[in-house]
């Protein structure tokens, strides 16, 4: 009797172990959000979709980093297109996109369309030979609706592959319009005016001109790289900026030395930022909070900080004209060296195809049109660099400023640290910018150390 019971216990233990393994496998499966559409081709209001017809009953998968709730707005923006054309768009969002896409491509299960969050991955995927160059109508549409800079980021070795989708902008200075109006400070339009205004604020008021925080856990220092990039794009030409990114000029090149010394005029000036070393231990969120509670006048940060300040620090996002709201914040453009020098630093996504099917081309084409961009922007919380995008459709005042910056920008460049090799862009560049403020490391020592860390090949 006892031997039988022992055997049962033993098997039970094995059963538990095995079921744990099974559960582990099941949990790693991706979740695909599928949509079902009732194809009602030819119904009223479908005239606008004439160019995409003839693909009824087909399906197109879009693989992306964008997941719910943002993904739901994308799906909503596709409904009319799907109803009219009979093409079903399957939005497949995964936060493991960047790791999984190469796996899927190597395994022969590439998605129809992939939304690349940065151009580096696009180039790597083109190198696999699995990508399909954008068809003529997509290329033509992008040529009309986007500036050449944006088209270039979707181009690899002279062949255009991926069309721009969404965008974000980093060249922002956050401020309180009420504080500015109360003190009679004017929005600066050049870098020198910005420095002069900082000096005026330091001399004539008890408000600290700038709040800066580099702290971001293990990614501490990225705020410093953004400052450097934004200034590099202004003190050097766009071509030099590109060479800097691709390491065709050294990281300690004179052009970069100029940029870091200009950045130091603000970041390493205790009159402007208070205790310089503490920048390294102030989180970027706390840095932004200074403009909400009025302890500092200006804060350079990308558009996303608005959401954090509104959510966690009870800030109200207002339009630049609204000078009455206490604690109301908004942005002005981080000025160039001259008033007509207006480069924009930011990022965006690009849609590239792995399948050469008419319905895939139709979806890729539709996503480049101003009609879709306006429809998508009207759903809120999103904008693109599409020249046909009407700012009236962009509800958020800061996003509206961002669209204006993008449409008026003399040049647009991607965040350099995202394009550099990870050893620099997610390593030494962060660490050295942190040491630059925390340990008062010299400009030259910082740049030399980053140059030394650049991977050899």
């Amino acid at each position, binding site marked *: 009797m006892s031997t039988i019971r022992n*055997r049962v216990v*033993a*098997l039970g*233990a*094995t*059963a538990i*172990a*095995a*079921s744990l*393994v*099974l559960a582990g496998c*099941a949990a790693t499966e991706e979740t695909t959000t*599928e*949509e*079902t559409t009732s194809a009602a081709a030819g119904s009223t209001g479908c005239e606008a979709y004439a160019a995409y017809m003839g693909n009824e009953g087909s399906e197109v998968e879009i693989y992306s980093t964008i997941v*719910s*709730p943002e993904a*739901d*707005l994308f*799906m*909503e923006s596709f409904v009319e297109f799907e109803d009219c054309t009979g093409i079903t768009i399957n939005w497949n969002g995964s936060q493991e996109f960047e790791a999984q896409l190469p796996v899927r491509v190597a395994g022969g299960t590439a998605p129809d369309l992939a939304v690349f969050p940065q151009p580096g991955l696009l180039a790597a995927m083109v190198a696999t030979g699995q990508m399909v160059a954008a068809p003529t109508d997509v290329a033509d549409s992008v040529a009309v609706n986007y500036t050449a800079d944006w088209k270039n980021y979707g181009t690899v070795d002279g062949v255009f592959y991926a069309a721009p989708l969404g965008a974000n902008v980093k060249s922002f200075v956050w401020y309180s319009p009420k504080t500015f109006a109360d003190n009679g400070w004017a929005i600066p339009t050049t870098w020198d005016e910005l420095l002069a205004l900082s000096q005026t604020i330091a001399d004539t008021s008890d408000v*600290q001109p700038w709040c800066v925080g580099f702290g*971001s*856990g*293990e*990614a*501490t*220092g990225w705020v410093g790289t953004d400052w450097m990039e934004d200034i590099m794009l202004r003190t050097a030409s766009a071509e030099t900026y590109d060479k800097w990114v691709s390491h065709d000029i050294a990281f300690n090149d004179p052009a970069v030395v100029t940029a870091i010394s200009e950045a130091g005029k603000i970041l390493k000036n205790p009159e402007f930022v*208070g*205790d310089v*070393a*503490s920048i*390294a*231990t*102030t989180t970027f969120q706390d840095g932004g909070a*200074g403009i909400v509670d009025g*302890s500092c006048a200006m804060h350079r940060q990308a558009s996303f900080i608005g959401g954090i300040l509104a959510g966690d620090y009870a800030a109200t996002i207002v339009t630049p004209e609204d000078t009455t709201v206490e604690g109301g914040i908004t942005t002005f453009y981080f000025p160039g060296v001259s008033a007509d020098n207006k480069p924009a630093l930011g990022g965006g996504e690009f849609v590239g195809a792995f399948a050469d099917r008419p319905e895939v081309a139709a979806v890729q084409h539709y996503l480049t049109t101003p009609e879709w961009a306006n429809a998508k922007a009207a759903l809120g919380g999103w904008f693109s660099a599409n020249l046909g995008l009407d700012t009236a459709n962009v509800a958020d005042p800061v996003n509206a400023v961002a669209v204006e910056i993008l449409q008026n920008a003399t040049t647009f460049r991607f965040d350099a640290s995202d394009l550099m090799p*990870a*050893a620099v862009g*997610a*390593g030494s560049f962060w*660490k050295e910018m*942190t*040491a630059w403020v*925390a*340990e008062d490391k010299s400009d030259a020592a910082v740049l030399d150390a980053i140059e030394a860390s650049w*991977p050899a090949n």
Partner: protein
Amino acid sequence: MKDFAILAARKTPWEIVAPNLTVLVFGLLAFAAVIFLIFILAERASVKAQEWLKYLVFLVPALLLLAIGLIYPAFRTLLLSFMNADSSEFIGFENYIWAFTRPEIVTVMTNTLTWVILVPLASTVIGLSIAYLTDRMKRSSAIKSLIFMPMAISFVGASIIWKFVYDFEPNLKKTDIGLLSAIAKALGFTPPNWLLEVPLNTFLLIVVMIWIQTGFAMVVLGAAMKNIPDEVVEASMLDGATQWRRFLLITIPMIRASIVVVVTTILIGTLKVFDIVRTMTGGNFSTNVIANEMYSQAFRQLNYGTGSALAIILFVAITPIVWYNVRQLRIERSER
């Protein structure tokens, strides 16, 4: 709320759950079938075969999991440590040369050494003292639970708590919330930005680890002290031994094996410390340690070569301690 409305219109919860449920049911059925098969085999097997089958059923799953989860990754890491960043070609010992020559990596090694010496020593000494002082005390459980409580807090949680303790407010107009700054001010000092002060900051991080590990040392050593036979203690009392001599000549030798286990266990934990540094300084301000740098190299900077080399160095450093620990455990067991 609009978003949910869209989702609801497109897909009922049942539609989302149903496929998973189907997979679950099929999985369980398949599993039951396998179990049933094993039962039938077991019934039919001879007595001798049943004996073997028993070993097999016990060992195979464990060995399989060990092979997949431990042995294969270990060899793969060793292989990767001799390869370049994207593991496409062999580069010999270059990653190891890199690890021992780059100045920032040398800092990492020195810091790790500081941790490894201080944490086990301080945690064990403090833990031992508290265990001894509370050994024959009435109502000691309240004190013991307070000291043991940090053990129940995750390293990241503890780091966030201590980050508040070390908090520094550069803006004089704002309220300072750092406890340590408040103490310094009360004593008449001007508080520095604690986490920026090299080498003080490494010691401040070490305090967090000691705070967590002391409870562990106290509980294990306290339990060992309870096992000391009363006759021995009474005999020494009758012989007129002072409290201090009794501690040195009776208690310590009697719990020696437990002390060794506590020290080595904390030591291994300290070599692997990663969460505290990552949460509090991100490895900046010369506080980096080997485990954090390993993660950063492999998964942030995507250099699997250098990351693996650091992992192997860590592995080689831990191995003798693990071996010693296991040997001590075995000795202790055989003594009983």
